[in-house]
Structures are given as C-alpha cells and as structure tokens.
C-alpha cells in the first residue's frame, strides 16, 4: 500500500533499523506478541522515545493497541508504547465469527465512505481531550482516532484496498 503511494518501506526488526526511518506503521497482528517482541528485541524503549519526539505513526488494529495509553481486557503483564490518550478495549466484538466488514463515514477523508474490515478488532472507548475522533460506530464507539502525528485505526484499510488513511499518514511524515 505505502509503496504504491510512492513511499520507501523498510522492515524494523532491531533498534538500528529505526535510524533513517521518518515514520512508522505498526500493523495488525497479535498485540501480545508484538509487545513481547518489541521488548525482547530492545525496540520498546527507542520506539517510545521516537514517538514522544513526534515521529508519525499509523497503527492498525494491534497497532492501535500498541499506541494506546490505557487498555481494557488486556493481559495483566501487557505493555504498550503509548502516545494516544485513549482507553482501548481488545477483541471488543468477540471472536473471529464476529469479525465483519462495514462502511464508515469519515468526514475528514471526504464524502465517499471507507469500507473497512474489522478482524477481532479493538475499539476506543475513552478518547482524551487532545484526541480527534475521525470515525465512530453508530453506537458512538470510536474506531479511528488521531492525536498529533499519531493515527490509530481499529480496522484494516489495507485489507479492503482503502488508501486514504495511508495517504494521511504520509502527509504527516512529509510535514514532520
């Protein structure tokens, strides 16, 4: 997705990989595993430093969980990188049988709705004052939030081929 939008993409697996990276995507996956690996590989501390120094980050699904300051339904030992002043609930819809696709209105991205895939997805329940809610479910729970250069999504725009959030992330990177 990012390559098709003209960005150069490199994987970040060790602290040295972060040098020369202008923005970061934390993708989907199991947030428990990403948490363990970032700590095991010595990435958690440098990532927190870069995030607080203003590095733009796009976090989707598990990535949203990693960017959240507070978690609900998490493992007691689970840590996050933080940066988004939100409470995020893991697996908010249930198991895989409740995973779904739906259209979302996202006024910031124009009038055309975003078709989104929610896969064992989290939701944002308590966005802080500095957090802008870009999209919410009809029941009011936020599923796309932004705070400064940090963009957190409950769903997977890449699964449905939706480029506009990635474009917005790249605009943050260019502006940084």
């Amino acid at each position: 997705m990012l390559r098709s939008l003209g960005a150069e993409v490199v994987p970040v697996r060790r602290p040295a990989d972060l040098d020369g990276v202008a923005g970061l995507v934390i993708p989907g996956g199991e947030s428990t595993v990403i948490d363990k690996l970032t700590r095991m590989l010595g990435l958690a501390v440098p990532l927190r430093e870069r995030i607080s120094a203003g590095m733009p980050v796009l976090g989707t699904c598990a990535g949203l969980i990693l960017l959240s300051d507070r978690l609900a339904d998490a493992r007691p030992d689970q840590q996050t990188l933080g940066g988004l002043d939100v409470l995020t609930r893991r697996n908010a819809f249930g198991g895989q049988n409740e995973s779904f696709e739906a259209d979302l209105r996202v006024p910031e991205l124009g009038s055309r709705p975003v078709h989104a895939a929610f896969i064992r997805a989290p939701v944002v329940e308590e966005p802080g004052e500095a957090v802008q809610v870009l999209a919410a479910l009809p029941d009011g729970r936020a599923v796309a939030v932004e705070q400064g250069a940090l963009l957190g999504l409950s769903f997977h725009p890449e699964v449905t081929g939706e480029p506009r959030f990635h474009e917005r992330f790249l605009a943050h990177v260019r502006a940084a």
Partner: protein
Amino acid sequence: MGRYHRGMTDTTLRPTTPSTGTTRVKRGLAEMLKGGVIMDVVTAEQARIAEDAGAVAVMALERVPADIRAQGGVARMSDPDLIDQIVASVSIPVMAKARIGHIVEAQVLQALGVDYIDESEVLSPADYANHIDKWPFTTPFVCGATNLGEALRRITEGAAMIRSKGEAGTGDVSEATKHIRTITGEIRALSAKSPDELYVAAKELQAPYELVTEVARTGALPVVLFTAGGVATPADAALMMQLGADGVFVGSGIFKSGDPATRAAAIVRATAQFDDPAAIADASRGLGEAMVGINVADLPAPHRLAQRGW
C-alpha cells in the same frame, strides 16, 4: 452478527450492512498471524504457557500428534469442555481440529466459537472421498497440503489458510521441508509458464483454471501459507521461514520437550528473526531436551499422516 449490526441506527450505512464471515475477514485473520508461531496445546495451562511465550494462536486438541501416533486408535474432534476452557484462558485466537470431511464436527467447532478450524489429517479421516465444503461456514478453515495442486483444491473448497503438512508427531523436519519446497517450487514453475501452457497446468494440478492463472500471475497463493509437521527446534522454525513459509505450526515439539516455556519462547524468537543466525544461536541455548522424535524414513507407509487428504 456482532453488536455493531444490532446497534446500527444510521440510515446512511444501510446500503452496505456489516457482513460477517466474508472471504476478506477469513483470509485477513491469517494475514495477521504472519511471522508467528501457532502451538498445539491440550490443556488451559499449556495454552497460557503458549500465550506467555508469544504464540500468535493456539491449536486446542486432546492429544498432541506424537501421542496420537503412540497410542493409536481413532482420533476425533476434542471435547467441547476442553475447547471452552482453552478459549476462556487466552486472549489470542484459538484453533481446533475437525476430521477431514466431518461436516458436523466443523459445525460444532463453529458453534463453540473457535477462531479457526483445522480440517486435519492428524485426526482420522471421516470421509475418504470428500473434504468439507468450507464456503458456508462463518469460521475460517486452514487445511494441509503436500503440493500445489492439493493446496489449490483446498482453496477451491473454501480454505482461507494453507499449511504444508510435514509429518506430524515425529520431530523430523524432513517432510515439512519437502512439502514447503514442493509448493513454493511448483508456484515458481507455474509463474514461468506461458499463458497457453496454463490450461494443461490446471489439468495436471487438478485445480480450477482461474485459480491457476491467478497464482501464475501473482507468484503466490491467494491465502497465507504456514508450515507444519516435525518442527522441534528454533533452527527448524527459522529453516521453514527461510524456505518461504509465512509462519509455523509447532505441535508435539514444544510440550513433548524438557522445558516447554523456554523452548516455546525460543521458537517464537527464531521465527521472528529467521534471517539472523546470531539471534537463532542465542535462542537455541539452554533449551534442555528436545522431543525424542522418530525418523520419517523408519515409519511404515500406513502410519504416515501426510498421505491422508487428496
């Protein structure tokens, strides 16, 4: 349907009601497991150890393949109580196995709310002619394959994830190597063919022409490809990743070893850092006894599980 459906009030959303069980969300969950390790567990306690070690998912079953092999008899779907306990004990996805062709075992697993169903040759087949029609299910399926044709037939039946079979319960990685090399090699061979050769290729693969042309064009399966069957060490797992697997299933290799928690974490690390020999060396230290293992060459043909499925 989830809460979202029931709570929907906004009329502008009505034209596209939220839909569950779509191909995108089925295949999408497997995408989220890429680069990870899925571990066989037989108790809630083992499931917690697996989650603590960094498993991306667990496979809930009553006996690991090494015990099925040792004890013999008919191997079936697990007890629903056991599956419930494992689902309740972890926050990561839970998979469970149904017998090949056993439609009702799969229906039961869906009703229990597992996240993925493995239509598995490790259990005794229920149908020696047909696999399950997987399209009507909301729960996604993973199926085993020893070659590209078998993988494409499973995808045609609705599998949302493929794992190469290997030879489960042996601790001998040689069959896993053979099957992942066969599948990736056949994909490369397909990509090299001219368009007019793909008709015969489809015939020889015994797979639909449209799917064959898609694989030839993209150079990959349209679903995630994991590997399984005989992985017992961090180096085994890294080998599978270097050979092109998207991730690794580890069955008997963890809980049949001397120190399951340490070995499980080491295999997770080696899978994530599969291209870094120094990291794999580090992960391989101090693991205690590996599972004893059986050489596949010493197994009489009727005892080879990989030959189940067609």
